[in-house]
């Protein structure tokens, strides 16, 4: 009969620590999973008033309302898959929380809209750096049929060297020009016109931050 004997360094304390650590680790993993899940939800994102502006345009888009009933949540697109990358994205994302708390008043629709282009450029860079990984959670290039006869052919034959977001931007949120052609003065004038502000108000707002 083989007698299993624990090594001598496994003392009761060590054993206790291992069990507690193991359980703690599992609990922590579950916590992270739940945390990432919760912090990827639309409800969590829109607890900040500043995010409700993004929510408005999102709710008007096919990513919110599709005939098939598939609905992409904030996190489906903006948080990477897998617990490690999701946690990483959330950790990095805390900078947005810090800016929300200590930065400009993003809750103000004017301030929010004035800063939207930079946010859009950053988001596009994020998608590009990940080869549009979150798009591909749902969309499979080979399976894209589209509604027109040639949509499939375009996606098969014309996408070499491109990633989804190279062509598909301004899909869900308010239209922002490409970073290359963006013109701050025109954007400011648009914001001023939309909110009935006098010319120059946008520059003053931005410089007072």
């Amino acid at each position: 009969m083989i007698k299993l004997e624990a090594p001598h360094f496994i003392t009761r304390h060590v054993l206790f620590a291992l069990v507690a650590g193991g359980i703690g680790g599992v609990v922590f993993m579950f916590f992270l999973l739940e945390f990432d899940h919760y912090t990827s939800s639309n409800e969590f994102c829109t607890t900040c008033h500043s995010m409700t502006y993004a929510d408005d345009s999102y709710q008007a888009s096919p990513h919110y309302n599709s005939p098939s009933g598939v609905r992409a949540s904030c996190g489906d697109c903006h948080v990477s898959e897998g617990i490690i990358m999701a946690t990483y994205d959330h950790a990095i994302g805390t900078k947005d929380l810090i800016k929300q708390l200590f930065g400009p008043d993003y809750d103000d629709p004017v301030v929010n809209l004035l800063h939207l282009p930079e946010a859009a450029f950053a988001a596009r860079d994020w998608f590009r750096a990940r080869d549009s990984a979150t798009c591909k959670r749902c969309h499979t290039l080979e399976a894209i049929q589209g509604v027109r006869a040639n949509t499939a052919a375009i996606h098969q034959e014309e996408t070499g060297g491109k990633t989804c977001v190279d062509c598909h931007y301004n899909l869900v949120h308010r239209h922002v020009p490409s970073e290359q052609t963006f013109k701050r003065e025109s954007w400011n004038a648009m914001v001023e016109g939309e909110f009935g502000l006098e010319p120059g108000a946008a520059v003053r707002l931005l410089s007072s931050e």
Partner: protein
Amino acid sequence: MRLLSLPSPGLLAKTLLFVLLFGCLGQVMAVKVALDPDNWGHPEGENCVSCHEKASPGLAQQWHDSAHKVAGVNCMDCHQAEQSDADAIEHEGQIIATIVSPKDCGRCHEQEFKEQAGSVHAEAYAIIEDRIPALAQNMTGSAMQAAGCDQCHGSLVKVRGDGTLDPATWPNSGIGRINPDGSKGSCSSCHGRHAFSKAQAREPSACVRCHSGPDSPDKEVFEASKHGMLYAAQREQMNLHADTWVAGQDYTAAPTCTTCHMGAAGKIPTTHDVGLRNAWNLNQPVSYQQYLVLFEDGSKLELPATEKAPKRGTELEKADGTMAKVKAVITPDRRRKVISLVCLECHGKGFTEAFMTQFDNVVELYNSKFGEPAEAIMAVLYERGLLTPLPFDEPLEFTYWELWHDEGARARHGASMMSANHAWWEGMYLVGRNFYSRFIPQARAVAGDQAAEIIDPVLASTGQHEWLGEPQQANPILGWMPPPAPDVDADAAAAGNEEVSQ
């Protein structure tokens, strides 16, 4: 031979105008593009085509069928843009603009660009800009500006702050479109994209989208004219696809709009200044003959020939309010001579001149009998506060507007291009009916007890409305004639006979 009627006809100006109006035949055929072919054939163009063959096969096929393709000009050559351009967008990694403006086309088609700049076509939006609120905003609604006025006159294209084109101003291919790059006009107004077929632009249908309807029924006038009759019957002989298209040389079957207003004929070169050959302005309350003033900055201006011609070198205010130096002035006579030279490819000189006399007589009749009196009466009614300054809030204003803008324009256009129906039944007949049965009675009602003082002297001064003062003059046109006056002798004789027979 006196070629020019300039106020100070210097040799330089003569030479300049000679070249402008009578450039050698070689010029007619040679000038295609100014740019060296090394500048086109953008390497990215193939990628555009490959995808657009699937994404928008219609326009891709049109391009495949085009002379542009044959010459190696691709999508990027026309659509490429600078990052700083107001309407620049990023598209599949390239910086492009949706709108290809005359300035863009002018990179290669330099001569056409210069010719159309400042023409009545290029200025079509600027010319009516201050009138738009009256009809398109007050009377109807601003939706009508995009769907109506701007479709022909062009829109002031607005690029929104987010880089998109404002749908209130785009899509638009109106001929006086103000483009985001500041250039005026739209080549695709007449040259359907993306085939840009020569034959298509030479067809009368290239003009019909705008030159039709009650106020400028040029389509209808042309179709009802002998020219239109011959064109319809002999269209196969029009040689519309020919490389060069000189009237009298490459085709003789019939003229189209292009032939007379822009086309090469004999020694006259083709021009993209479509109003260059128009001696009259036919779309005003009163027609006037007009100078074409050419400025040193390349822009142009039309001025009534009732005023003294501006001198070369003087500063003059342009249509857009800025000042420019006068380079040359083309008189109405000169303009008439140019268009008459087109006629001479098929008609004799006497025939041509007599036709022009018939046309001028109609315009002068309209002016003196109806246009000038109506304008004068309206002016007094406004001056005395009997009409409010606001247009179209009083029935008389519609009556007056239709008198000159619709019926009066139809009569004048009909006479200019030989549609008897439009000159008369659709034109001057309606002018007369309107004038006597609506305009004058309404004006009298508006003038109230001042009617006799305001209106009668104006009518009397023309010397053409006196027939109204002879109500006893009979005519069988309405089917009734007064019974003949009793013949006293005959009656007496009849009575005598009766007596005899009894």
